[in-house]
């Protein structure tokens, strides 16, 4: 077994073990912490598809995270108030069914990602970073200044949405849903990466002209990868809203885009399990530093800075050595 594969197994099984150990030790808080890691890692897995495999440095993935969150929140609120979301041209009722919410979240993110991607992918490099940021900011300000769904204060919904056959209010069952979603995201990433499409995507990153010469349009490959990436991050957003039973503009803020990007870079850009390693390290650091000092952000910044300056290739890079290819 390759070293990276072994590390991936340890990371995946480790995350699964944490909540059960926590229950056994009667420390239910850690179940929530592990759920947070799983959800944010999934958002990172989504971004990694665009950023790691496709070289598209999207600084606006919080847009999709937030859209997914708002999809969950808005549908849940409408279900709670028993008033339909739309009556014209056809009726869309609110819902508490997670599966329906996920589908809506993914569809919304796909639509928005197509629109953003069509414009943003015409640019490259720094311009791409900034235009994705600009679109995310548009959605952020839209959410802030639109009073119907909470505006600046966000939306609280009091009951976690339901999943058939499970009690989502039970922390461990909700964790298992999020964990399954993360694993599904990772599985999909792996399949995409090793497919013909994944190969085309990686060539689009390395040498666009060569890809075009084989008769594949780099733009289309990138757009599809960008949309899939957005959908995964959006699904994570829907789960995150359910975790907190709250969705607000902070889920759309550029700080969050930065954080998701940090998970990816910290874990190792383009590594399959990089986002999981990064999210886990970031959240554990945040948690422990927060317990030690009020000024934990200062030290978090210092640690991150040292990691960038002195540790190349992120956590997985250090543990597993160089990548074989890509």
């Amino acid at each position, binding site marked *: 077994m390759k070293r990276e594969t072994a590390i991936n197994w340890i990371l995946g099984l480790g995350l699964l073990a944490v909540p059960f150990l926590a229950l056994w030790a009667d420390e239910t808080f850690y179940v929530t912490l592990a759920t947070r890691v799983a959800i944010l890692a999934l958002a990172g897995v989504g971004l990694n598809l665009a*950023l790691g495999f496709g070289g598209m*440095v999207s*600084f606006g993935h919080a847009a999709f995270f937030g859209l997914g969150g708002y999809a969950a929140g808005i549908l849940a609120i409408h279900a709670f108030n028993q008033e339909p979301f739309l009556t014209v041209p056809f009726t869309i009722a609110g819902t508490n069914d997670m599966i329906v919410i996920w589908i809506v979240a993914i569809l919304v993110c796909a639509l928005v990602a197509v629109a953003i991607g069509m*414009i943003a992918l*015409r*640019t*490259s*490099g*720094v*311009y791409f*970073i*900034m*235009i994705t*940021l*600009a*679109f995310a*900011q*548009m959605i952020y*300000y*839209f959410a*802030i*200044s*639109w*009073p*119907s769904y909470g505006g600046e204060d966000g939306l609280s919904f009091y009951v976690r949405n339901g999943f058939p056959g499970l009690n989502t209010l039970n922390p461990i069952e909700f964790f298992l849903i999020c964990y399954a979603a993360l694993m599904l995201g990772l599985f999909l990433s792996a399949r995409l990466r090793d497919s013909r499409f994944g190969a085309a995507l990686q060539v689009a990153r390395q040498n666009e002209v060569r890809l075009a010469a084989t008769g594949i349009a780099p733009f289309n490959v990138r757009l599809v990868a960008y949309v899939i990436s957005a959908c995964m991050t959006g699904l994570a957003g829907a789960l995150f809203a359910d975790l907190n039973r709250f969705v607000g503009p902070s889920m759309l803020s*550029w700080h969050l885009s*930065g954080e998701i*990007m*940090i998970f990816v*870079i*910290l874990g190792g*850009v383009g590594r399959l399990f990089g986002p999981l390693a990064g999210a886990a390290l970031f959240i554990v650091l945040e948690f422990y530093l927060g317990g030690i000092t009020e*000024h*934990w*952000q*200062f030290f*978090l*910044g*210092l640690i*991150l*800075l040292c990691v*960038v*300056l002195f540790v190349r290739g992120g956590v997985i890079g250090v543990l597993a050595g160089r990548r074989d290819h890509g």
Partner: protein
Amino acid sequence: MTLVLLTEQLLNGIQFGVMLFLMAAGLTLVFGVMGLINLAHGSLYMIGAFLCATVALATGSFWLGLVASLAGAAAAGAVVEIAVIRRLYDRDHLDQVLATFALILIFSEGTRWVFGSFPLFLDIPPVLQGAVTLPGGAEYPLYRLTIIAIGLLIAFGLYLLISRTRLGMRIRAGESDREMIGALGVDIRTLYTVVFALGAALAGLAGALVGAIQSVQVGMGEPVLILAFVVIVIGGIGSVKGALIGAILVGVVDTLGRILLPQFFALFMEASQATSVGSALASMAIYILMAIILAVKPQGLFSAGA
């Protein structure tokens, strides 16, 4: 909507734009010359504001505060460049984003550590208090007019610096071919430190000037930073002229949008709805502007390179 009100808002927009220019000039130089994305530029703005407020409160002189903010921000910039930024020039943009994001955390939390969470307030210097009557009858605060004047003077100064002086020649040369000017015997490391400190000083000046209009608080640099990025992307990265025009465009569109859009929608909507639609669109206006410009000209209006 009277002409007087429109003039005032237009001037507010220009004043805001000039402020953005002070931020954007440094960003675009660092971007253009060193190819570095500096997310921590907003922290230098914050440092300028805090230094100005602290020194002004301690000594009672706004002007001493202004000098302190310029010197302090330049010094902070130089230190950061030597300690951190220098190691990032050869890295890809991702590492730069992560490292400068980390710097934001350090600076913001460090400032909160020293000054606490409460905002500071800085008074407008007595000489610049009061209003001026403009031709046409509009009354406009003297302080804001001064900011516009200072900003335009600095824009002109920067233009002279870059197009007429030896330092400017080196900056331009560094933009197009860093190996070559290194081979010609220019000390690139020092040059980069100087450019970075210059950009930091401009950001610090912007923070100090704005400190007298708004409250001085932790995190004040971040919204401005994002706008400054919008400005340089619209203007074309590396172009000081593009930064000036982009900044004023963004400032005016943002300010006028907030006034005009709600009124525009009120023409054919009920009042409360018009306000929410109008203000939602107004806060998105500059990003829409940016998306349109980039969709038409992917390299910005006055792209220097490429």
